[in-house]
């Protein structure tokens, strides 16, 4: 029952996202045709009435709205997100070319910052009020108050430009030929370190604070006292009793932080000229390539919603109380 409810809920959300995407160009001020053609929507498009009608018919904008909506859904189901104005290619193709870089960037960052944030938060809460806790709390709050793009820019200036330890940007050396795959992997890794470090530092605060708060409420719980009454050691209680309970709220928030991370990538990719979906979105915004902007919006939103869905399922698995309802 629980699963079916959740599934229905997420399907509704995806439907809402698809509808927002459909109505965006049609509900915004200005000429919807301009959004498809990439003209400035505030300016009247210079074309004859005939040309205009032809264009409208070409994009199906002359049909009544419900019919347009059905057409849009049918196209989507075939993976057709329209054509990019700038690249003259299907939007889907352009996104898929860039996808691997974004996945590499966010994937690497997530694999590091989540466990790290959880670990630091748990340790901090367990040492509540002691120097160790206060120090890590203040450090993390301070570092987290820098937006990722400011942090990233400073990293580029110091570690890449001044110290020359890392490349200034991009995902690999442009025009390089590699002797073997290992060399290529090392080159990609070399380019990856700074953007990943930026993402981690900019996003670790949320997980850390959440884990710390969650852990603090667990520490006061009766079952922790109960575990102490058994004579168990503090380390054992932390590992076996406290962490799993404290992780429960983290799991629900994990999807949310993945959402933040996905958005954070946009800024980091701009700073490092890293050729992922985020940079594509930024370029498309500059070029007012509306079909591409919409395609990326759809892609990221559905990805984040799916992450939420997976987190919900994980919660059921972690908390025996929910699965029985």
């Amino acid at each position, binding site marked *: 029952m629980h699963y079916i409810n959740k599934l229905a809920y997420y399907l509704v959300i995806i439907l809402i996202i698809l509808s927002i995407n459909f109505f965006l160009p049609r509900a915004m001020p200005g000429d919807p045709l301009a959004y498809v053609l990439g003209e400035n929507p505030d300016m009247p498009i210079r074309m004859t009435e005939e040309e205009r009608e032809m264009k409208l018919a070409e994009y199906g904008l002359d049909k009544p709205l419900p019919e347009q909506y059905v057409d849009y859904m049918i196209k989507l189901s075939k993976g057709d997100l329209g054509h990019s104005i700038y690249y003259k290619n299907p939007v889907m193709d352009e996104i898929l070319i860039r996808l691997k870089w974004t996945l590499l960037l966010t994937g690497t960052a997530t694999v590091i910052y989540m466990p790290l944030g959880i670990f630091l938060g748990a340790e901090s809460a367990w040492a509540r009020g002691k120097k160790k806790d206060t120090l890590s709390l203040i450090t993390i709050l301070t570092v987290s108050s820098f937006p990722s793009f400011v942090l990233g820019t400073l990293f580029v200036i110091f570690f890449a430009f001044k110290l020359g330890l890392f490349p200034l940007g991009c995902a690999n050396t442009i025009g390089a030929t590699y002797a073997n795959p290992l060399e290529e992997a090392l080159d990609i890794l070399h380019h990856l370190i700074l953007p990943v470090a930026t993402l981690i530092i900019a996003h670790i605060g949320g997980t850390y604070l959440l884990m710390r708060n969650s852990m603090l409420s667990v520490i006061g719980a009766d079952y922790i006292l109960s575990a102490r009454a058994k004579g*168990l*050691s503090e380390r054992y209680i932390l590992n076996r009793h406290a962490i799993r309970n404290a992780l429960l709220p983290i799991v629900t928030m994990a999807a949310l932080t993945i959402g933040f991370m996905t958005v954070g990538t946009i800024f980091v990719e701009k700073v490092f000229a890293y050729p992922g979906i985020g940079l594509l979105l930024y370029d498309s915004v500059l070029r007012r390539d509306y079909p591409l902007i919409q395609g990326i919006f759809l892609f990221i939103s559905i990805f984040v919603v799916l992450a939420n869905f997976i987190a919900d399922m994980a919660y059921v698995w972690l908390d*025996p109380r929910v699965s029985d309802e």
Partner: protein
Amino acid sequence: MILKISKLKTHFSTPDGLVRAVDTIDLSIRERETVGLIGETGCGKTVLGLTITRLLQSSTTVKGTIIYKETNLLKISETEMRRIRGDEIAMILQNPTTSLNPVMRVGEQIAEVIRLHQGLNKKDAAEKAIKMLGSVRIPSPSQRANEYPHEFSGGMKQRVMIAMGLACNPSLIIADEPTKGLDVTIKSQIIKLLKEVTKEKAMLLITHDLSVARALCDRIALMYAGELVECAPAGEIFDAPRHPYTRGFLGSLPRNGLVPIPGMSPSLINLPQGCRFHPRCANAKAICKRKHPGMTEIEDGHFVRCFDA
């Protein structure tokens, strides 16, 4: 004598002032004896239990001595104390619903304490945990051991708590409100079970329920505002109570007509001058307001803290 508490004080400092939760208490428990510690909510009885097992925050001030067998529990290291906790002295905490870890299987919660203190391997400890569940009359224990606390009823959870406390065959059990929140039938079942399993053991039973104390205790100590006010064999407490508080407490029982003691118990931060009970006492005299009465032995083994006794 298995436990001898002398001049025990437990004080917390809070932003509102010093909380004198346990204030100069003397109490001893003999081998195989069940002593009831009775008092209203907030009088400090749970704190006394937690002081004995040293489960309070390190910022708490504890003074006096707690001699368990030959050892002063307040003098040994935390590591040594951990060896005693759960093994020699078991504490059965109140509220089984919150005291059991919601995301850990019940069997494992019992098995972990067995592994720790008896050095059994995983398989043997799990088997012993099932045996313990059976010994507290939980039906089909091998199946129930694999379930989570939320799958148990209130009474069954209390049985799990008792099994957990008994798992390492302790010599002293501190049971905190083991019948709280249970309906009458379940309550009498738990009392019966406790009576049976603690026959050979010493127990400190913390409760505000006189019927439970009557059924289980050899001796009873009444606690009021952080100190003991009367301590005597159970029969004498019920038949010839000497302290006005004890009489009031007995009078508030349903079968005695539910006459409540007037007034409220004082906060442990602002204790009244003189006798701590005088603001609520019907026979309070001038001296009661000025002088704090000491504990006097009025009959063999019957102690009262009252000028009038």
